[in-house]
């Protein structure tokens, strides 16, 4: 053991050094040389009936283009999107505006607009969430929406309410709501709970809850009494999350997302599911946006390299698709230098997760060049000192490149 300990001890320090360097050096390099461009904005223009976009070149410089490559200036770009920039038109007294043979005034545009954004990092299982939720009390005689004095949780036996003032279970509410759910055939516990937990919304639609058998129930609290509806949503759907988005249009309650990437809107028409034909959507690594205007629905999904747009009519029938490559403003030489220096990067952050996601991000083909140079430097320096090349040390450098070279050189074996 006494012979082995120096070896283990030294290599422990080397491993720690490689971990620290692979975390710190690429982050420092990006801070100095990295250039970040903002997300491109992709829309479907109801005037030209084409996709039109704004891409960032970095440093507050933008390109305004459409899918055919035609260039616009900023006012020209905004003029192509009258439902989005209608307030500009109002200031210029250009409302009502005529689009596709229909005239739209401010009220008509406002009434026909809705936006919904689902970030992958907010989905169930992609972030830490304590499973306690506020169930707002709907009182028709109260205009504001006060926060309830309790939160609820689902257990194996029922739906429990915990009073915040006393930090104790409210037995009365617990038994009332549990009984109401059981009467509708709810099988405890809940497997998916979807609802908007803020009072910054026009009204409250409560929660959509998937039970153990896969059935989805709609639960509201009206004058402190439960209002439970069995939605009839297909229980075989492998639902990952239900995102509720109350909107005065009252067309749909929100969105159902399955683990296979299928998206459905939950219609106000007896909970009928409206499928959204976005074939490339992967909820584990893509964000989703749905922008609705009086004539079209525009679905945008974003990945680190692409932005995919789907234009649909008001019945969500797909009209056309467009893929936009994200612009990387970092010069190619900087990218090659980064890959050569850093064969991998230890990373804990992931834009699609709201919690740590430990990962090793490997560089491109230039990393091999960097590793070979690091190995050669090590052999040359060692031979120059008239020492024998240690195969174990060389192996570490051939796996970890510059990190290993620094660690082995600075934590030398005497």
């Amino acid at each position, binding site marked *: 053991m006494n012979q082995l300990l120096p070896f283990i001890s030294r290599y422990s320090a080397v491993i720690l050094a490689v971990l620290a360097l692979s975390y710190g050096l690429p982050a420092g390099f990006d801070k100095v040389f990295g250039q970040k461009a903002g997300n491109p904005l992709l829309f479907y223009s109801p005037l030209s009936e084409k996709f039109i976009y704004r891409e960032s070149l970095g440093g507050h410089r933008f390109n305004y283009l459409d899918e055919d490559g035609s260039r616009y200036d900023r006012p020209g770009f905004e003029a192509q999107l009258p439902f989005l920039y209608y307030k500009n038109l109002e200031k210029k007294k250009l409302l009502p505006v005529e689009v596709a043979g229909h005239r739209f005034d401010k009220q008509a545009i406002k009434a026909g607009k809705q936006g919904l954004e689902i970030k992958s990092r907010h989905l169930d299982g992609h972030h*830490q969430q304590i*499973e306690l939720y506020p169930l707002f009390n709907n009182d028709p005689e109260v205009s504001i929406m006060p926060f309830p004095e309790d939160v609820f949780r689902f257990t194996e036996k029922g739906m429990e309410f915990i009073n915040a003032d006393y930090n104790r279970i409210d037995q009365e509410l617990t038994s009332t709501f549990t009984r109401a759910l059981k009467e509708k055939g709810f099988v405890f516990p809940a497997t998916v709970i979807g609802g908007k937990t803020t009072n910054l919304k026009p009204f409250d639609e409560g929660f959509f809850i998937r039970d153990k058998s896969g059935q989805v129930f709609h639960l509201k609290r009206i004058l402190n009494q439960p209002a439970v509806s069995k939605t009839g949503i297909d229980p075989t759907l492998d639902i990952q999350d239900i995102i509720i988005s109350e909107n005065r249009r009252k067309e749909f309650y929100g969105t159902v997302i399955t683990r296979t990437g299928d998206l459905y809107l939950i219609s106000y028409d007896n909970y009928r599911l409206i499928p959204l034909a976005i074939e490339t959507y992967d909820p584990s690594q893509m964000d989703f946006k749905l922008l609705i205007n009086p004539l079209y629905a525009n679905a945008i999904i974003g990945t680190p390299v692409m932005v995919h747009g789907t234009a649909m009519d008001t019945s969500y029938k797909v009209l056309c698709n467009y893929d936009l490559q994200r612009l990387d403003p970092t010069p190619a030489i900087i990218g090659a230098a980064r890959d050569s220096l850093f064969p991998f990067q230890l990373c804990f952050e992931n834009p699609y997760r709201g919690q740590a996601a430990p990962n090793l991000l490997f560089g491109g083909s230039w990393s091999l060049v960097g590793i070979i140079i690091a190995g050669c430097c090590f052999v040359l320096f060692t031979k120059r000192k008239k020492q024998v090349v240690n195969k174990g040390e060389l192996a570490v450098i051939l796996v970890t490149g510059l990190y290993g070279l620094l660690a082995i050189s600075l934590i030398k074996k005497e």
Partner: protein
Amino acid sequence: MLSSLLLKEWLKLRIFFAALLLLNFAVCVKIFFDIRQQMHSEHAEMVWYQVIHIHTIPYTAIMYMPLATGLIFAAAQFVPEMLGRRMRISLHLPTGRNRMLVACLFTGLLLYLAVCCMDSGLVFLMLRTYFPMEVAWSSIPTIAPWIIAGLLSYCGTVTVLLEIAWPRRIFLLLVFSTLCLVLFSGTGYGWFTPALWYLVGLFPLALLSVFESGRRFQQQGAK
């Protein structure tokens, strides 16, 4: 011999242990009164909402305490030994170098963990008093990376203090500082939960690396 070494380390650390225990306790008391005041001045349900859904952590005052505790314990144990190279005397004791280091590290880490257990336990009890059980449990994976940062700061300080060559000393300081910095990244409760076991794995590596500096000190520095 081992018991004598443990006694020597205890005598060296007991004042610091008492002071750090008191300081950590005082920070916990501050957290308790902060939460109590917030509960009385705001609606309790809004405080719950902030903690559960906005991911506000009401015990951030404790965040850097384990790091500071680890640093102070390591400094209290090894700075006097390194001043005037008194460590050379310890290395002439009739026991092995590694055995002596194990005794030192065992004492320091035991006292460090005692302080951290008190912190975690008090935070858990405070949260249990004012919040549902789920919130109290969420504090454990939230505090765990801060405790691991303290373990790394302890081992890192010992490694750097025992190291004799300045370039290597600076490099090791940068390595341990970076690793500690990683452990304070992220936001909200339980951010590091999916990576917690990887982080725990850093501790044995940091602990083992102390022995390399100890070996180098005896072979080159204690002449």
